[in-house]
């Protein structure tokens, strides 16, 4: 079922946009390469962003699932925790001051920014009585995110060229992705998802409580550190190329938990596939609604995701969640 949705999403991503091409023609062009009509050129231009959308969506979905598992918190997501704003800040600093333009350099910077932000936010939230509950995490994330966002603005504002070029850093767009980006991101995404799958059963045990997990022979500290590393890495590589795209990691794991089961061995693969579908569909929606230009995918995922976030919060009963 989910696979069907993703396939339809992929096809529509290639077919729709500021210029629509019938499905049949798309299939025709895909399997008869070599044609050099205008449609073929449009399709060729849409393929990298579609492939990148798949990678980014699955990375964000898994990243959200891991963060929710580690923090035992249904509203954790790279955007809520401010992690992708931290990544963006480092990328903007790298471009504006350090003259870094290689993709790998930016991914490295983005990773450093994301790790530091994650540690900082988690540190603030877990300080004091009661540990890191949802409210504290979300508030610290929002506060840190606002602060870092203000810094991104101060760096971009004086230079209108930088501003124009990197406006999408604040919103999140997969429109600029190239084949080189895909080649660069692919290994990280694969490693991250494999790590997540390996860690899944240990995370299941940890959901029962740390003591229980220890008695089941799980090295709690190691699993938590590796999961955090994988989660942050997945989000950081996407942010380095696309800028902060929010709420994908919030929606999918939640949906899986509602529909199927609270089992990480299911949540991780379904979040990966579903995240890919969601991001590609959101991108198509943005392109169709924003005609003749396009709406950045980050806007669409926020409009779709934030109500779900509100719904999760409104439904919950406990104090501090």
């Amino acid at each position, binding site marked *: 079922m989910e696979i069907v949705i993703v396939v339809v999403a992929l096809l529509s991503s290639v077919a729709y946009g500021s210029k629509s091409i019938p499905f049949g023609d798309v299939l025709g062009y895909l399997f008869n390469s070599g044609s050099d009509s205008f449609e073929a050129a449009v399709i060729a231009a849409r393929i990298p962003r579609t492939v990148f959308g798949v990678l980014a969506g699955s990375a964000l979905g898994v990243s959200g699932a891991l963060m929710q598992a580690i923090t035992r918190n249904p*509203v954790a997501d790279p*955007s*809520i925790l401010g992690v992708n704003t931290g990544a963006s800040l480092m990328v903007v600093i790298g471009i504006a001051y350090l003259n870094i333009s290689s993709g790998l350099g930016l991914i490295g910077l983005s990773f450093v920014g994301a790790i530091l932000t994650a540690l900082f936010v988690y540190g*603030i*939230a877990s*300080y*004091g*009585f*009661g540990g890191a*509950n*949802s*409210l*504290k995490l*979300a*508030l*610290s994330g*929002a*506060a*840190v995110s*606002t*602060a870092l966002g*203000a*810094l991104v*603005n*101060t760096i971009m*504002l*004086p230079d209108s060229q930088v501003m124009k070029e990197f406006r999408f850093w604040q*919103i999140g767009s997969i429109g600029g992705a190239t084949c080189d980006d895909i080649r660069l991101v692919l290994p990280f995404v694969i490693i991250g998802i494999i790590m997540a799958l390996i860690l899944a059963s240990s995370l299941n045990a940890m959901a029962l409580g740390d003591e229980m997990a220890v008695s089941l022979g799980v090295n709690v500290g190691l699993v938590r550190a590796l999961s955090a590393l994988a989660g942050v890495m997945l989000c950081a590589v996407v942010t380095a190329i696309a800028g902060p795209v*929010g*709420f994908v990691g919030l929606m999918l794991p939640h949906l899986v938990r509602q529909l199927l089961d609270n089992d990480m061995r299911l949540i991780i693969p379904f979040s990966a596939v579903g995240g890919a579908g969601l991001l590609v569909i959101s991108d198509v929606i943005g392109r169709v609604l*924003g005609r003749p*230009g396009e*709406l*950045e995918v*980050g*806007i*669409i995922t*926020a*409009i779709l*995701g*934030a*109500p779900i*976030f*509100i719904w999760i*919060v*409104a439904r*919950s*009963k*406990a*104090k*501090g*969640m």
Partner: protein
Amino acid sequence: MYNTESTLKKIYRKSYHRNLICTLTLLFVITVLGILMMTIGNTNYSISQVVKALFIDQSSKASYTIISLRLPRLIVGGLAGFSFGIAGYTFQSLLRNPLASPDIIGITSGSSAAAVFCILIIGVSGALASFFSVIAGLAVTAIIFLLSGKGNGFGTKMILIGIGMQAVLNALISWMLLVGSEYDVGTALRWLRGSLNSVTLSDIPAVAITTVMCGGLMFVCNRYLRIMQLGDEFASTLGSPINLVRICCMVCALVLSAVATSATGPIASIAFLSGPIAVGITRNGKNAMLISGLVGTALVYAAELASKNLFSTKYPVGVITGILGAPYLLFLLLRLNRKGDKI
């Protein structure tokens, strides 16, 4: 013998004196900052030149800069800071939560989204946009309240839902900015970015009238608000019309911040910072509304001076206040976390 009544009187008088001293000090600080705002800038003028340009010779070379550029910034910026200050204080004390200022729980974004919608999509601006932004602010507040439910966890949910609301509304705003015509985007940006740069003399009447009217009404309500800080049951036994006061205060605070925002844009963190600073310097939290307003004005003036004179890039004032506000927000979170799970 221990005389309770006279002790209470002494305490009361002491806090009254403290408030008076704070008020006078703030007025002094505001005057000094105001004079600085009028005198220094791209061209520096002496005080006598400023006075001359204002009152005696309005056709002199200096008078354009002073009357058309610096005077509106002084008046509108001051009134807007005052409005943001008392609006923030009102929300914080109504909801008994230092984090509950309009710009944190998404109300400001609601107002901005409505105004941007009016300007970019319908094509109306000015008073009508302000009106709709007030309505939208009220609607967002109502939605947050309804969704937050009642009883346990209300405060938690309210803030989390506010953060969620803010995300949707900001996404909608970005959407409209991308779809809207380039010509109107400049007007719309005024609702989004705090800056005194585009303020003119014609902005003064609307801001002044609402500040006097809504501000006055809020000061009347403030008496009851203070009683309500003791708790709802206690307040109703003392005979304060709780719901009426609450709604009245909230509407006034929303109108005030919406009208101020229409002139200057949402100057970040002023609403959020002023209340706690006022409570901090008066040390009693009673009657801190006036002082919150004055703190707001002083903050706007100080940030405006800093933004115009300290850096080579002339950042909008909202960027400076945003950077000032963030560390305080983090500090507040740490302090609340240490105190326990009472957010």
